[in-house]
């Protein structure tokens, strides 16, 4: 394998594994805050136990998120030195701000939150939980600001030697890409956490253990899951889709598998893109729907891949197409299932409906798959650019780090993360087995 492919795989592997954890951290931080609020308002010890249980899971998840997050920041320099040299003066701002404003906040108050409940008043402890939530969402904000700049660079000019010079600090945060991408991503984190909570609750109800907690977890998870699943599609997914349509039209064409420009473009539900013959095989389509979703007109023109030079096409149209369709397909299923579960909850039948509880429980891995597919859509969609329109991916990696060295460390990370994943599942399994009333 050549060095470029290995550098890309190295980043892809480590970021994909890493993001399995922060998405739960960010979503769960919000749901723990909800449980803490319920505990504070009702004074009921039940909610305190529930919050402590999720705080224990949060702690393990957070630890893995931290240790797998450190390599991400290092890799900009180790594996992508040309990119860092050119763009460090711009994205270094947002990355350094993440360290200074969110990591210190999170790490300081996570300790207070996890170890300080006996020492602090209930309100002060609620506030520590709030600061952990705030720190993690702020961290997400700076990371998305960084990615949004790579997707849609703003506030810069090019220097004489090709270096990218920051001209407007404010532009980093008023980037139109940032708003929807941030909301879409954070809503996705809430979807993951809601499904995890509901799934554990459903497991307790189905196995007749810790049932009072099972009911709480299912209730909170289903309500939060319903709200967040709908918000995923509209307005955040819709807003993000329009960003792509207006700023990366070739990406939209590739995502949708639209090879030819059409007035009244169809929306492909299923089908396999054939980039040789420029067509979608076995298509299942909704006529004119893509035109309507993009421009609110049934016969608006949507540009197909054919209308762009081949060298600006995303370099892996097929994988981009599948990633996007997996994300949207799963998102649709989530909305449907959660609407059904919320209806049963409202009717008061959910806790007894074993079939529905089975579905809720088995949904656990799918939000992780959906968010991963979503990020693959964003990152593959940006190709062939590392910084959209400015820097191509093959010009960004470290020229002196040979393929052999990258493969060595990629294998190292694969081994390390396999062990980490096994340990994580083992510890989480034990926490779930022992249940909420087990003292830590």
């Amino acid at each position, binding site marked *: 394998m050549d060095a470029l492919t290995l550098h890309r795989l190295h980043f892809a592997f480590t970021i994909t594994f890493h993001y399995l954890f922060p998405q739960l951290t960010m979503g769960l931080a919000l749901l723990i805050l909800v449980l803490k609020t319920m505990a504070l308002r009702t004074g009921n010890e039940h909610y305190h136990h529930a919050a402590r249980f999720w705080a224990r899971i949060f702690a393990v998840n957070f630890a893995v998120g931290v240790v797998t997050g450190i390599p991400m920041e*290092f890799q900009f320099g180790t594996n992508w030195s040309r990119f860092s040299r050119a763009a460090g003066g*711009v994205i270094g701002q947002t990355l350094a701000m993440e360290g*200074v404003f969110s990591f210190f*906040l999170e790490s300081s108050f996570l300790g207070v939150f996890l170890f300080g409940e006996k020492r602090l008043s209930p309100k002060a402890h609620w506030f520590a939980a709030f600061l952990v939530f705030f720190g993690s969402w702020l961290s997400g904000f700076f990371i998305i600001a960084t990615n949004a700049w790579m997707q849609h660079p703003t506030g810069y000019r090019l220097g004489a030697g090709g270096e990218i010079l920051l001209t407007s600090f404010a532009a980093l945060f008023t980037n139109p890409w940032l708003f929807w991408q941030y909301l879409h991503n954070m809503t996705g984190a809430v979807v993951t956490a809601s499904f995890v909570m509901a799934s554990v609750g459903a497991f307790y109800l189905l196995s007749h253990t810790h049932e009072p907690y099972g009911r709480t977890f299912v209730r909170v998870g289903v309500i939060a899951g319903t709200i967040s699943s709908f918000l995923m599609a509209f307005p955040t997914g819709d807003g993000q889709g329009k960003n792509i349509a207006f700023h990366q039209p070739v990406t939209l064409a590739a995502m949708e598998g639209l090879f030819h420009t059409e007035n009244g473009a169809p929306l492909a539900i299923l089908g396999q893109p054939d980039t040789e013959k420029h067509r979608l095989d076995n298509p299942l389509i909704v006529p004119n729907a893509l035109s309507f979703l993009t421009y609110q007109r049934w016969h608006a023109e949507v540009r197909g891949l054919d209308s762009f030079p081949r060298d600006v096409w995303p370099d892996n149209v097929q994988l981009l197409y599948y990633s996007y369709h997996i994300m949207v397909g799963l998102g649709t299923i989530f909305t449907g299932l959660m609407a059904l579960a919320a209806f049963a909850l409202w009717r008061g039948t959910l806790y007894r409906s074993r079939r529905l509880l089975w579905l809720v429980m088995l949904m656990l891995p799918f939000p992780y798959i959906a968010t991963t597919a979503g990020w693959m859509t964003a990152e593959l969609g940006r190709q062939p650019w590392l910084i959209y329109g400015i820097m191509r991916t093959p010009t960004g990696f470290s020229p002196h780090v040979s393929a052999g060295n990258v493969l060595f460390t990629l294998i190292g990370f694969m081994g390390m993360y396999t062990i980490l994943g096994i340990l994580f599942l083992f510890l989480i399994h034990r926490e779930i087995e022992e249940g909420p009333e087990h003292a830590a």
Partner: protein
Amino acid sequence: METTWFCFVALMLGAYVVLDGFDLGAGVAHLLIAHSDDERRAVLRSIGPVWDGNEVWLLAAGGTLYFAFPALYASSFSGFYLPLMIVLWLLILRGISIEFRNHIESLVWHPFWDAVFAGSSALLTIFFGAALGNVVRGVPLDHAGDFFLPLWTDFTAGPEAGILDWYTVLVAIAALLALTAHGALWLALKNRGVLHARARVLASIVWWAVLAAVITITLVSFHVQPHLQQSFDARPWAYAFPLIALVGLFSMKIMNATGRDKEAFLSSCAFILGMLTSVAAGLYPYVLPSSTDPALSLTIYNTAAARYGLEVGLFWFIPGMLLTSAYFIYTYRSFAGKV
């Protein structure tokens, strides 16, 4: 402006070494002074609520380096590729050894993670020391400001050197010793009884080795990197930094011997900060000297980001650091006293 950011990054790295240094050192001391499970729990409790925040200084310093000196970040991180990756793996192992250890009560689980914690802590101090040695010695930079170093070659400190040569290994050993003493003094400060006594004894024995190592590396550093002498000649006031280190070093011994734990630990902080600031002052304005042609060296001027970015950075960096100091004062206050 470049000098201001050089000082900020140096201070953040200094804060990292002093703060994470004591929990790394506690890791090195872990198996040496804590024998029973209760004692080992006490060692971990002594760093429990703060180690993660201490480690954030490394991330924040890295981020600040990235933003203020992107060309230095790009060159050094890709050039030190292999040791940095090993550092990352060690940080992962160490982080989970602290977090996962107490989740399961078992005579197999605990000793395993104790060994991982001690081993990864010791290796990290060695790698950080070697990194410092490499920055002082210089690396074979090319005209584009890039280089790549293998882990070792023939162990000479010449232009064909690897990450590890006789000089950088010496600095690595000095770092291991200095942080072991630093960690032992922290454990003495936070513990009572037998653990307190053993920590003090460890610190006082290691102190002699630290003294020997400091004398040796001071002498050879001026030989390996002639620029140090030129810097101190040009700015004699910079001798204040090695003086701080010297005062810290001896006060550390006296305070430990007379049982003043807090003063001994603070002296060790002064010693470490004095050593690091001496290096920074000795290298300035270089940030990564070239071991082949001095003209190819990376300086604060040829690696800094554009002026607008550096200026606008001050507006968020200074308030951010004030906030951070407030968190740390709050956390350490609420964690004050023996565990």
